[in-house]
C-alpha cells in the first residue's frame, strides 16, 4: 500500500508537462540512436548529459530523459538486427539469430512486432520488479561473490555451444577467438599490459562495439561488394506490411520466460543486458527448441532475447539506484551524472529522495507505453527499409558505422580496428563460422576472467573457493544438467539418423 501511494506520487512528478515532453523526446531519440549501428545507449546517454546540464534540468528531469533514451535504445537496437543483420547495440546481437532469417523470409513486420511487444513485456516486468522488490533485491546482489559470478559465466559459456551454427566445432572456434581478443589490454588485476604490442590505443582492450560494428556492418559491406549489390533487393519479398497478431500471441511463453531470466541477470551488477539476452535465448532453445527451428527464423528466438535484454536493462537500475553499483556501461554513465547533480545513489536514496526514485519508476511505466505506441505504427515504415536497394542503403550504413565508432573515442585507431574486424568477419563468414559466439566471447570473457582472478585473490590461490558457496554449487549443477541434456539430445539425433539413414546426408 505504501508502495502504491509512493508510486502515485511518482506519477504526479512524471506527468508534469516538462517531464512528459522529455520522456517522449527521449524515447524517440533513443529508438533512433539504438537503431543506428555503432551508436548505442552509452553514446546516447553520454551525448545527452551535457545537454541536461546546459538546460539546467533538475536531477529528476535529467534522469527521466536519460532513462527514456536508455530504454529507447534497448527497443531500437533490434531494428537493424532484424532488417540488416547488424546489431544496433551489444545486447541486440542475439536478435540477429532468428530476426534476420525471419526478415529474409519476408516476415520482417512480424519480427519487428514480436520483438517490440517482447521488449514491452520484458521492460514492464522489470519495472514492476523494480517497484515491488527493489530494496529487497538490492540485498541479493550482496550475496553474489566473485566465485558465484564466475560460475554464472561458466553457465553462460556452456550454453553458447548450442546457440549458433550447425557445426559445434566452428562455434567453439569462434567463441575461443572472442575469448582471446578479450585478453588484449591492461590486466585490471595487476595493471600489466597484455598482447598490446606497446600500442597505447589497445591498453583498454578492444571495445566490443568496435568489434561488433566491424564484424557485422563492415563485413556485410564487403560481402555486398563481392556480390556487386544485386542480390538482396531481388530475393526478399515482403509478405505483409502488417504484423500477424496470432504470431505475437504464440510467443507469450517465450516472452515471459525471457523476461524473468533477463531480470535476474540485470539485478546482478556483474551480469547485465548482454548476458540476460544470451541466457534467455539459450534457455528458450532448450525449453521449446525441438524441431531445430531456432536459428532459422523462429519467432520465439526473437521474443526471448528481446524480452531478456529489456528486462535486464530495467533490472540493472536496481543495483544502480540502491547500491550505487552500475550493472552496465550505460548505468555507469547515468550514475556519474547523478553524482554530479548531487544525488548520492546508495542505500539511503529511496528514503532520502523518494520523489526522484518514484518519479523515475513512474516515468519508466510511461516510457514503456510510449515506446510501444511509437514502435508499432513505425513497423510499416521500417519494413519498407527492406525495399531500399542495398547499393543505396549500405553507403549509409558505412557512414553511420564510421561516425558512431569515431564518436566513442575520437580515435582513428578505432576506425582502423573496425576495418580489421570487418576483414576478419568477411573471412569467417566465407568459412561458415558464426560471428555471434565471437562477440559473446569478447563481451563476457573479460568479466569472467576478472571474477575468477578476484576469487583467486581472495582465497590466495586456493581453487576450493570456486565451490565454497551454495550459489556456485547450484549454478555448476545447472551447467552440468545443461551439458548432459545437450549430449543426450545429440546422441538421440544420431540414433535416429541411424534408424533413418536417408537423413544422414542432410545432417
Amino acid at each position: 500500500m505504501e508502495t502504491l501511494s509512493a508510486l502515485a506520487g511518482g506519477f504526479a512528478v512524471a506527468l508534469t508537462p516538462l517531464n512528459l515532453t522529455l520522456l517522449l523526446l527521449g524515447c524517440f531519440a533513443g529508438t533512433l540512436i539504438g537503431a543506428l549501428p555503432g551508436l548505442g545507449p552509452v553514446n546516447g546517454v553520454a551525448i545527452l548529459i551535457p545537454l541536461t546540464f546546459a538546460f539546467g534540468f533538475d536531477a529528476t528531469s535529467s534522469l527521466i530523459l536519460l532513462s527514456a533514451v536508455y530504454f529507447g535504445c534497448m527497443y531500437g537496437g533490434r531494428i537493424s538486427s532484424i532488417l540488416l543483420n547488424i546489431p544496433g547495440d551489444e545486447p541486440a546481437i542475439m536478435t540477429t539469430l532468428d530476426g534476420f532469417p525471419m526478415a529474409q523470409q519476408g516476415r520482417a513486420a512480424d519480427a519487428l512486432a514480436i520483438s517490440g511487444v517482447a521488449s514491452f513485456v520484458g521492460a514492464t516486468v522489470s519495472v514492476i520488479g523494480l517497484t515491488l522488490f527493489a530494496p529487497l533485491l538490492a540485498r541479493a546482489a550482496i550475496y553474489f561473490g566473485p566465485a558465484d559470478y564466475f560460475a554464472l559465466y561458466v553457465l553462460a559459456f556452456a550454453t553458447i555451444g548450442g546457440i549458433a551454427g550447425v557445426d559445434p566445432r566452428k562455434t567453439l572456434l569462434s567463441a575461443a577467438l572472442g575469448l582471446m581478443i578479450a585478453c588484449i589490454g591492461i590486466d585490471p588485476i595487476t595493471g600489466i599490459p597484455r598482447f598490446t604490442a606497446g600500442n597505447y590505443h589497445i591498453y583498454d582492450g578492444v571495445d566490443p562495439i568496435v568489434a561488433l560494428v566491424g564484424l557485422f556492418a563492415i563485413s556485410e559491406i564487403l560481402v555486398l561488394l563481392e556480390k556487386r549489390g544485386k542480390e538482396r533487393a531481388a530475393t526478399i519479398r515482403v509478405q505483409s506490411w502488417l504484423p500477424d497478431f496470432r504470431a505475437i500471441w504464440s510467443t507469450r511463453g517465450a516472452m515471459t520466460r525471457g523476461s524473468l531470466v533477463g531480470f535476474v541477470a540485470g539485478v546482478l551488477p556483474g551480469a547485465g543486458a548482454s548476458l540476460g539476452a544470451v541466457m534467455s535465448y539459450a534457455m528458450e532453445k532448450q525449453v521449446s527448441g525441438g524441431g531445430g527451428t531456432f536459428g532459422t527464423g523462429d519467432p520465439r528466438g526473437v521474443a526471448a532475447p528481446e524480452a531478456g535484454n529489456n528486462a535486464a536493462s530495467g533490472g540493472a537500475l536496481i543495483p544502480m539506484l540502491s547500491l550505487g553499483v552500475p550493472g552496465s556501461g550505460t548505468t555507469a554513465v547515468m550514475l556519474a551524472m547523478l553524482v554530479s547533480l548531487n544525488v548520492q545513489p546508495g542505500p539511503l536514496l529511496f528514503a532520502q529522495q523518494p520523489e526522484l526514485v518514484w518519479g523515475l519508476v513512474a516515468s519508466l511505466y510511461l516510457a514503456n507505453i510510449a515506446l510501444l505506441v511509437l514502435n508499432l505504427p513505425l513497423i510499416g515504415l521500417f519494413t519498407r527499409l527492406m525495399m531500399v536497394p542495398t547499393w543505396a542503403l549500405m553507403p549509409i550504413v558505412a557512414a553511420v558505422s564510421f561516425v558512431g565508432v569515431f564518436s566513442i573515442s575520437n580515435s582513428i585507431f578505432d576506425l582502423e580496428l573496425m576495418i580489421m574486424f570487418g576483414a576478419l568477419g568477411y573471412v569467417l563468414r566465407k568459412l561458415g563460422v558464426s560471428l555471434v559466439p565471437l562477440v559473446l566471447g569478447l563481451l563476457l570473457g573479460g568479466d569472467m576472467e576478472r571474477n575468477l582472478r578476484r576469487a583467486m585473490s581472495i582465497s590466495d590461490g586456493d581453487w576450493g573457493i570456486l565451490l565454497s558457496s551454495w550459489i556456485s554449487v547450484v549454478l555448476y549443477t545447472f551447467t552440468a544438467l545443461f551439458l548432459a541434456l545437450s549430449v543426450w539430445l545429440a546422441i538421440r539425433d544420431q540414433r535416429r539418423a541411424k534408424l533413418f539413414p536417408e537423413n544422414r546426408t542432410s545432417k
Partner: protein
Amino acid sequence: MNTRKVTALLAGAALSALASLAPASAQTTECIAPSAPGGGWDFTCRTIARILSDLDLIDGNMQVTNMPGGVGAVTYAMVDGERPEDENLIVATSTVGVTQIAQGRYPAPLDAMRYIAMLGADVGLIAVNADSEIDDLAELTEIMANDPGSIVTAGSSGAGGWDHIRLLLVAREAGLEDLSALRWVQFDAGTDAVTQMMGNQVDVVSTDIGEIAGFVESGDIRVLAVLSDEPVPAFPDIPTAVSQGVDVTGYNWRGVYTGGDVSDEAYQAWVDRLETLYQSEEWQEAAEESGLLPIWRGGDEFTQYVQDQEEAMAEISREIGIIE
C-alpha cells in the same frame, strides 16, 4: 515516398552526429578528458568548462573531448607528439595519472608536460563492515603487522593502483615489512568493493570517500579512518589516520596539465584563470556536491608537488614489486 523518408532520416541522423564531432576552431579552448564520459576526469573537464564560460574567463565556450585509452596514456602520447605547443588545450589528470607515470605506463616522462594546477581532491578512507570484529584503526594496524594473511583487502584499483598503494602506506606505517603479504582484490568501483564487503567476501576496503558516502551515512560500513590532514567537512566525526598516530594522507587530487612546449605567459595565464575559478562560489559548490574537498595548488608549487608524489609512488611500487 516512405523509403525516401527513412533514408533522409538516417542521413539526417548521420549528419547531425557528424556536426557534433566537428573539430574545434583555432580560437576555442579545449579540455580533454582522457576517459569515457562519466567518472572523475570527465567531471573535471565538464565542470571547468562550464564555470570558465559562466565567469567569462575565456572567449566563447570550452569544448570538452573524451579521449579514452590506456588510463590516460593515449592522450599523453597525443599531446606529447602532436600538440605540445597548443596553448588552448588543457587535459584533466589526477593522482591516478601520476601513479601511471611513476610506474612507467605512459609513453613520456612526467616533465614532458607542464602541470597547471589542482583544484580539489577526493579523500581516501579505510572501512570495514558494520559488524566486523575490527573496531578501530589500531586493531587493524595490529593485524596488518602481525597476521597480514588473515584479512582480505579490496578497492577500486588494481594491484599497485592508488587505492592499493595508500593502504600499503598505512600498512608500512603499522610496521608490516613484506608488503606483498597483504591480499588485495580489485573491483571496478568503490561501491562494488563495499557491496562485496557487506557480503563478507572481503574484510577491508580502501577507496575514495565521495563515491561511497551513501554507505557511510546508512551505517552499513564502519569507517576506521579518513586519509586527510583534517576531518572531512561532510563527516566531521570520522577521525583521520594522522590523529590516530598513523602518519598517512591519501588524497586523490583532480587537476590539469598542458603541453610541454607551451610558453611561460600562456602557462601563467592558465594558472591565473584557474585560480580565479577555484575561488569562485560556483567551483566551491560544484566540488562539494560531488564530494571533493576544494584544495588549491598551482604553478611551480603544484609542479613540485607532482614531482614529489611521483617519486613516492615509484618507491613504494618498487617495494611491492610492481616495477623493477
